[in-house]
């Protein structure tokens, strides 16, 4: 485990000097917008984490890190595993940051300062209704944070696995295969949900009602489950990649 932590630290330091400034700027920007407009905006930070993770392999390839990893006193398998744990950790930290912003935003409710000024105006009525709905149902925001982080983390881990196994030049093909697989899964769920008799819990209307009525505690349970799924997928993808890549010569 110590080896993995050392490699994660190595990867973090590689990326921090490239992307840290921009990431902090985006976090602060989203934080301000979240506080003033909607806590849901915090979710956007997740997409920026791609920029903190995705270029790592490019940098590693360009600078011949495989040779460096070969000279360091560390098991090569742990180098690969560390990359996937790094991906999980990056999205988990992002998720926690977003939650802190969302919770603070809900508690402080600073949007009142702006939108109460012109409450009577026709144009802003719809917007205000939406704002109040979001502030009244923080569980929806938390669910969005968990769901987006999980989807992005799994997508990133998938791309990392495919590009390590098949090379960065085949990434487009890997992404297309991923999208096709995802479409098939979503299509399958949609088909199932359109037949109430098959699996009643999957029925769209039922799901929507359940979603609106969800409590904060339930969203936290969902979050814990999605994080566990994120970690499990990263570990599985990491192990598959390790088995294939560690057999190769440097």
């Amino acid at each position, binding site marked *: 485990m110590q080896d993995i932590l050392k490699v994660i630290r190595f990867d973090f330091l590689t990326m921090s000097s*490239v992307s840290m400034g921009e990431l902090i700027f985006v976090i602060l920007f989203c934080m301000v917008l979240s506080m003033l407009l909607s806590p849901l905006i915090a979710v956007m930070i997740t997409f920026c984490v791609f920029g903190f993770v995705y270029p790592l392999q490019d940098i590693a390839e360009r*600078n011949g890190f495989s040779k460096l990893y070969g000279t360091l006193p560390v098991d090569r398998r742990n180098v690969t595993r560390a990359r996937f744990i790094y991906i999980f950790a990056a999205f988990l930290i992002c998720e926690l940051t977003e939650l802190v912003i969302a919770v603070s935003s809900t508690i402080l409710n600073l949007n009142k300062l702006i939108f109460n000024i012109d409450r009577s105006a026709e144009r802003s009525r719809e917007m205000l209704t939406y704002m109040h709905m979001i502030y009244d149902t923080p569980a929806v925001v938390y669910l969005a944070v968990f769901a987006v982080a999980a989807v992005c983390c799994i997508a990133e881990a998938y791309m990392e696995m495919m590009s390590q196994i098949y090379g960065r030049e085949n990434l487009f093909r890997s992404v297309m295969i991923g999208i096709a697989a995802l479409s098939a899964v979503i299509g399958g769920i949609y088909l199932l949900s359109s037949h109430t008799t098959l699996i009643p819990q999957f029925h769209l209307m039922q799901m929507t009602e359940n979603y609106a009525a969800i409590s904060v505690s339930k969203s936290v349970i969902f979050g814990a489950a999605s994080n566990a799924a994120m970690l499990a997928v990263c570990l599985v993808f990491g192990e598959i990649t390790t088995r294939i890549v560690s057999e190769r010569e*440097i």
Partner: protein
Amino acid sequence: MENILEINGLCKTYRDFSLKNVTFALPKGYIMGFVGQNGSGKTTTIRSVMNMTKADSGSISVFGLDSVKDSIEIKQRLGVVFDSMYLAEHLTAKQIEQQIRPFYKNWNSDDFFASLKRFSLPDDRSVGDFSKGMKMKLMIAIALAHKPELLILDEPTSGLDPVARDELLDILSDYILDENRGILFSTHITADVERIADYVTILHNGTVWFTGSKDDLTESYAVVKGDEDAIPEGLKERMIGFHSYRNGFEAMIRTEDMRSLPETLVCEKASIDEILVYIAKEAKNAGHTESDTL
């Protein structure tokens, strides 16, 4: 004499190249020059020592440890520098030190920054802006910062200007002052070997052509020139890299064969550079002979 590195019967086959039964040893306290033409197998041998490539057969022992089973322990005690840089070029030397430090038990940051100072390397500039010589010195500073007992360098002087090369060789000479250490450095610049190496291993087409002390090598071979008709019977077959010209011939012979040479033939001690050239010529001659036979 205790060996710091021992390679026994190393074999490795690729599609178009193979290492065949590579065997040599580096005693503690000495520098070994590992020479051979490009593509002779030097880097493959070094990568095998580093467990970066899997040997088909043979064994490698470093500090008496197995290079495969004890690879991590070996890498803790060994410093290696390859001919190209493999560090993040957008980082400064200071940031790279922070990255690599945790991997080594014996890492000494003071030593690292002292090396930077000694090599006149800035610690606050992106290493991508460094010249080739500066990059090489940085890699050596990193390799030395964890006090390695064995330093392995793969073509460290290639592409360096004479001043940078000279500085690099001085660094290696200083490092070996501690007699518990060893250096294996591969190069095709034989002048570097002649200057600092105690031992030489010559690799040719994946096989060890010579391994032993540098003095043994240079005293064992001589270049002979003159009229082809003056060559005593039976000696021509023993000549290495025989080449005939319009006015005569030149070839390399073993010094023990010099006794049978007539005075009309001119004999000179062979330099390592000449030895390499004649080995290559011999291989070429052998290739011609084979094709003639076919």
